[in-house]
């Protein structure tokens, strides 16, 4: 399955959920397919999508919060898996597009070919950690995580076939933040889960 195909499976399933995107082709693919106000695009800052998503999830327990992460990002911040597992927000869904390379910088090899990240997540303490590699498996796995208690982890194995002509995010960082905060809105009193 191409990375693009994984995004094409997932994005139509999104409603108004906030989605924190890791840098590189994760941002670019998602932006190109469907720009959403509730998308936070982390345009640099490799490794931190998971901690940003965790912060959102902890402070908005009334919202299902999704992280679109990459293998390089997860490997850089494996400790954040421990923070997510220890704080255990039920409303967090952590999706990792694993192409086993640093694709946006020229497809240099990452370590995820040797390190099964879904097992790392499970060992860290995520109650659910799934791995899929076929296109038709993406939707049922995502829906299982969205309908259950998290934190949930989904590793999607994809081929490293990113089209370098895919555009970059055109919003300024401040615009990205303002749109994201507006889309999140304020938590209604008494909505703690």
């Amino acid at each position, binding site marked *: 399955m191409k990375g693009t195909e994984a995004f094409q499976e997932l994005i139509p399933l999104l409603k108004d959920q906030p989605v924190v995107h890791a840098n590189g082709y994760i941002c670019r693919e998602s932006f190109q397919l469907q720009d959403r106000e509730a998308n936070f695009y982390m345009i640099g800052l490799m490794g931190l999508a998971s901690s940003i998503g965790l912060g959102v999830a902890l*402070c908005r327990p009334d919202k299902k919060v999704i992280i679109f992460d990459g293998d390089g990002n997860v490997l850089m911040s494996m400790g954040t898996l421990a923070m997510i597992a220890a704080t255990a927000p039920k409303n967090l869904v952590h999706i990792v597009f694993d192409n086993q390379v640093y694709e946006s910088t020229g497809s240099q090899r990452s370590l995820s070919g040797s390190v099964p990240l879904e097992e790392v997540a499970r060992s860290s303490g995520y109650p659910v950690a799934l791995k899929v590699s076929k296109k038709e498996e993406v939707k049922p796995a995502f829906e299982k995580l969205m309908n259950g208690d998290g934190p949930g982890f989904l590793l999607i194995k994809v081929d490293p076939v990113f089209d370098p002509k895919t555009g970059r995010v055109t919003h300024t960082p*401040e615009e*990205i933040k303002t749109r994201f905060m507006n889309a999140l809105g304020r938590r209604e009193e008494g909505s703690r889960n």
Partner: protein
Amino acid sequence: MLSSQNFVDQLTDKGFNFFTGVPCSLLSGLISCLEKTPDVPYIPAVREDAAVGLCAGAYMAGSLPVLLMQNSGLGYCLNAFTSLNLIYKIPTLVIMSWRGCGGNDAPEHIIMGKINEDLLKAAGMDYAVITPENHRDVLERAVRKINEELPFTLLVKKGIFDERH
């Protein structure tokens, strides 16, 4: 010396309601008080840059975050401060212990202690050195900066807060 409990009370009175960090003995009193404060989370972070990310998410989700850390973690955070807080305009109050201040500390703290202020200045991170006398004023200054959606750092020398370890 400032009372850690009194300062934590001042922070929560100002609306700060989300705390995370990586410990330092100089901040041990503050963290100990935070762990006992009801309704306000203190999340132990694995590394300082992960705490910066956590604070950014918390802010965008409507909370007012505080990051407690030793200055030895500043190097890890520079990319996060510059590529997240400063360009997206995401504020965070950083309470940073100033180990190695004046060159009188363990060897691992000497160089960072010397360049601590220069690094903050070079990155464009506004800061103040907190003292028992100025603490209310610098906290007001921090709040003004945060209202402008920018981060602010309070540098804490040894002996400013009571320690608990």
